[in-house]
């Protein structure tokens, strides 16, 4: 189902999300937001609101963790497919394997966290990724990691339990490291959003990963 043409979607979306260092209106808007201490109020927008953004994944922290788990499942599957694709060798392949192992560890930790809160872990989504060339795969990886970091940042202020927050933050900064490493490989800015990471809301994130989920 996911063919080479689908690759155009995440890439253009990435530009829209200002994750690629483009010069769209979105970039200007986000850059302007980043220049003062009010920059991140958007991510706290729904704090205290009745219905949580992640309600479809469960209540409260369980919902947030299951949302994160779904994204980590996708990242893990993506890296596993990339390793199998044979498009990479040597140091790049090692980096991809390493990142894939780390995403798998995130899956395990999040599954445990959901269970420890008495919740039911979200099922693993069935996914397919376009694996055309080394370059397009690296670009997709960069998109996915930058989006992942933004997704965690978007939820940090909504997490109730300090323990869950500590775990989410410990994962969030690793996603940021992955994103910066991939951006370096791609010759793009390590901080495409400037001095302050920008959050992404659930709707935007799910819309971006939708093309890769099958069945």
């Amino acid at each position: 189902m996911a063919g080479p043409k689908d690759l155009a979607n995440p890439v253009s979306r990435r530009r829209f999300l200002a994750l690629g260092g483009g010069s769209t209106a979105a970039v200007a808007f986000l850059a302007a937001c980043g220049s003062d201490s009010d920059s991140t109020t958007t991510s706290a927008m729904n704090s205290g609101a009745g219905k949580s953004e992640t309600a479809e994944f469960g209540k409260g922290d369980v919902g947030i963790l299951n949302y994160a788990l779904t994204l980590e499942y996708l990242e893990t599957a993506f890296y596993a497919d990339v390793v199998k694709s044979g498009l990479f060798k040597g140091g790049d392949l090692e980096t991809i394997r390493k990142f894939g192992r780390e995403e798998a560890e995130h899956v395990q930790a999040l599954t445990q966290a959901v269970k420890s809160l008495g919740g039911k872990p979200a099922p693993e989504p069935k996914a397919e990724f376009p694996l055309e060339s080394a370059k397009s795969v690296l670009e997709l990886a960069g998109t996915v990691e930058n989006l992942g970091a933004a997704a965690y940042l978007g939820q940090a202020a909504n997490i109730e339990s300090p323990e869950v927050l500590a775990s989410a933050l410990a994962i969030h900064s690793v996603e940021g490291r992955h994103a910066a490493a991939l951006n370096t490989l791609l010759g793009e800015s390590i901080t495409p959003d400037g001095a302050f990471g920008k959050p992404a809301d659930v709707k935007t994130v799910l819309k971006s990963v939708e093309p890769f989920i099958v069945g």
Partner: protein
Amino acid sequence: MNSKITSQEQLANPELAAVGVEDDSQDLSRSEVILKGALAAGAVYGALSVGPYVRKALAATGGGDVAILNFALTLEYLEAKFYEEAKTRAKAKGELKSLVSLLASDEQQHVEALTATIKKLGGKPVAEPKFDFAYSGTSGFLKLAQTFEDTGVSAYNGAAPMIKSKEVLAAAGGIVQVEARHAAAIRLQNKEEPAPEAFDPPLQEKQVLKAVEPFLA
């Protein structure tokens, strides 16, 4: 790959032990005390011990968002000064030179944002201490930069769960993500793994807390 640092030296990061933090006014602030402790903990036990140390030290001093932000500000003062100085002192060329400029600018923006946030909360931003960085050349710079960035990530991640205001937490999250990005970029310059662990810090806090006990003022 990275495991050699602990077995080879008694100190995990000896370069951190050589960093000077001085306050001319002789009015050593709580933030500076915690920063000194954080550097000491990082020097002896590695950057990953910094988060749990910072969390415990802030809790012991009564915490509060302004206290946490002032500690973060002290850390950002250190990083901003370090990169500003490095523009000439690190003798960086090409790609690294651009990276140093970027990092200097990012850290300076963090200083400004934290100062503004502290004022907004009705607090008083701490004064900038004097720093003394003992390193020489590009490789010395890169080694210290990697330690500072990993320390910064660990410190923010350690302190963040104690933040009460959701807005302040979101702002701190936006900063720590950028520190993590810096850490990865500097690590690549050092030919090290950009993300050595799956978790920043890994979840072995009890062990680490015991290790940093001597540095808790």
